[in-house]
């Protein structure tokens, strides 16, 4: 990972704590620091409840962060912003949601759903231009322009997710957060949507934060992958490097748990179990760069051991 690459997003010590009672606090995201480079896809993986969705939602300001900074093109987008600043930021960052059934308003036509962003940001000068723009977007995501006047319930899950993608693209964003965009879809449809996302990225130079728990799909779509565990990032590396040479024991156990469509391999697989108590608890672990671009959460002792390998 060269230094010459442009950072689109810098996240510094991001924290998101939720109060769940008078005294109890859930630390959903607890001190994340990472960068997203322009034009790359960063995969964010982890078990349910590890804080990966919260991270995405906090970055796009669906939640206000408890602490930390989110720098988008060098500007801090957390904290108090004027409406004008917010609007500008909202145009540049968009989100694709997990559930294609609940993320589209059932009372709006596809035309209005996709054009909502166009209206808010005044991107179309007249009714005709608005229409043309929506037709263009529909075609871009592989739908037909006659679909524009229909309602979401008339579409299948895969088609709905395409509508969600078109809506996100309507305001010409640079950065898209995709929160498990394919988990709710059938296998054969997943491949269609993933191919679409890859093509869009190539054609338009988009940057993606791809949140998922399906590791083989994440490996396929991502340039780099970050692994989260209990609100903390435990490992970050190029996707090939992460799969070939996982260092953190949690990453190892996660990788060894993915079932692969290969019966021979499955018969001989050995699973690695992760026990968080195996770590030396006398020292607070830190996020350290073991080899260039490969970061691991570790103590000094573990760091030396990783380095020696």
């Amino acid at each position, binding site marked *: 990972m060269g230094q010459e690459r442009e950072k689109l997003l810098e996240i510094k010590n991001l924290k998101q704590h939720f109060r769940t009672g008078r005294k109890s606090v859930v630390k959903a995201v607890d001190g994340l620091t990472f960068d997203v480079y322009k034009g790359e896809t960063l995969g964010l993986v982890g*078990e*349910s409840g590890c804080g990966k969705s919260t991270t995405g939602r906090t970055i796009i300001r669906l939640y206000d962060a408890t602490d930390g900074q989110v720098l988008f093109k060098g500007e801090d987008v957390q904290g108090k912003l004027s409406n004008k600043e917010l609007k500008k930021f909202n145009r540049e960052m968009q989100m694709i949601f997990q559930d294609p059934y609940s993320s589209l308003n059932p009372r709006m036509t596809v035309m209005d759903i996709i054009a909502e962003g166009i209206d808010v940001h005044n991107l179309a000068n007249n009714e005709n231009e608005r229409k043309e723009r929506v037709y263009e977007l529909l075609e871009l995501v592989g739908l037909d322009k006659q679909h524009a006047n229909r309602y979401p319930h008339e579409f*299948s899950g*895969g*088609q709905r997710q395409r509508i969600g993608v078109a809506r996100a693209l309507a305001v010409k964003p640079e950065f898209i957060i995709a929160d498990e965009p394919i988990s709710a879809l*059938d*296998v*054969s*449809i*997943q*491949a*269609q949507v*993933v*191919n679409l996302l*890859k093509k869009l990225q190539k054609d338009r130079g988009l940057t993606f934060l791809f949140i998922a*728990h399906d*590791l*083989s*799909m994440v*490996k*396929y779509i991502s340039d780099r992958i970050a692994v989260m565990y209990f609100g903390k990032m435990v490992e970050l590396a190029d996707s090939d490097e992460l*799969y*070939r040479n*996982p260092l953190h024991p949690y990453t*190892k*156990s*996660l*990788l*060894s*748990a*993915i*079932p*692969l*469509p*290969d*019966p*021979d*391999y*499955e*018969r*001989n*697989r050995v*699973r690695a179990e*992760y026990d968080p108590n195996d770590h030396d608890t006398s020292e607070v672990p830190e996020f350290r760069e073991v080899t260039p671009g490969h970061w691991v959460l570790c103590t000094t002792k573990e760091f030396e051991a990783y380095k020696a390998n």
Partner: protein
Amino acid sequence: MKKILDVKNLNVSFNTYGGEVKAVRGVNFDLHKGETLAIVGESGSGKSVTTKALMGLLPKPHGYVKEGEILFEDKDIAKLSEKELQKIRGKDLSMIFQDPMTSLNPTMKVGTQIMEGLIKHQKMSKTQAKERALELLKLVKIPNAEERIKQYPHQFSGGMRQRVVVAIALACNPKVLIADEPTTALDVTIQAQILDLMKDIQKKTDSSIIFITHDLGVVANVADRVAVMYAGKIVEIGTVDEIFYNPKHPYTWGLLGSMPTLDSDDSELYAIPGTPPDLLNPPKGDAFAPRNQFAMDIDFEEQPPMFKVSDTHYAATWLLDERAPKIDPPESVQKRIDSMASNDGKGDM
């Protein structure tokens, strides 16, 4: 091997306002003692409906077995009365449901829920049932079982709840265990534990398992044989090796090709175009034909029969007819099969 279940020409339909939905259209398969049969397919392919018919759990009266037989120990389940069904259900045939969050009763202690079947079917006394429940909780590896037996479902995590569901299903030593996407709602690490647990228990009890899933990775892990369903029909059935290393049906090719492997490069995934057909008006001919790049004229006219590939391997595609041109799987699928063969199951990460 002894045949324990024999499904012959099963047809299941639902009466809806729009008309008759033919959810399952002529399914044939059998299940041997001690084996695991995986049924794969997309949502709406009829895999869950097939198992609901096996359990006699079709929503009556609008869901019904239109034709065919389900022979379990020479009795036709499709013709049993509700009362007779209740004697079998939970005892000889038992089911694990997909969602561990909703398949347990939130107002009952888990121990009581496990004991229910034991008292009803095995005529156990409460003390005996409790002892057995404790044993079962230990069998499914729930730590601290003596305490946990007195707790309610909300006090358990998703993976632990699914263990309780497995314990309930196993309570009466069923001959056939039907698992409908038992791990879909769980994380990969928990999924791995539950799969290992099920295989382990199968070894101990020698029960047969029908495993429904859409995840081919899970299939490769658990199955002895695989049936691929599409639009209410089994389109290909064979041993797990035959389906993964020598698939014959274009739909199976599509399913295999649409999953990325961990060492796949940046090339596009092989995606099956289009969407599954509407079973309110199933298409004439092969239901997969409109999505099949290899479809021939006859595919749109007539349904292909099951062609025999080997003694255990059958596929319903006209491509296997001797008059059909010889067509190889798409390049990306072939490449995947080759790479699996070269791996030779050593599989190091």
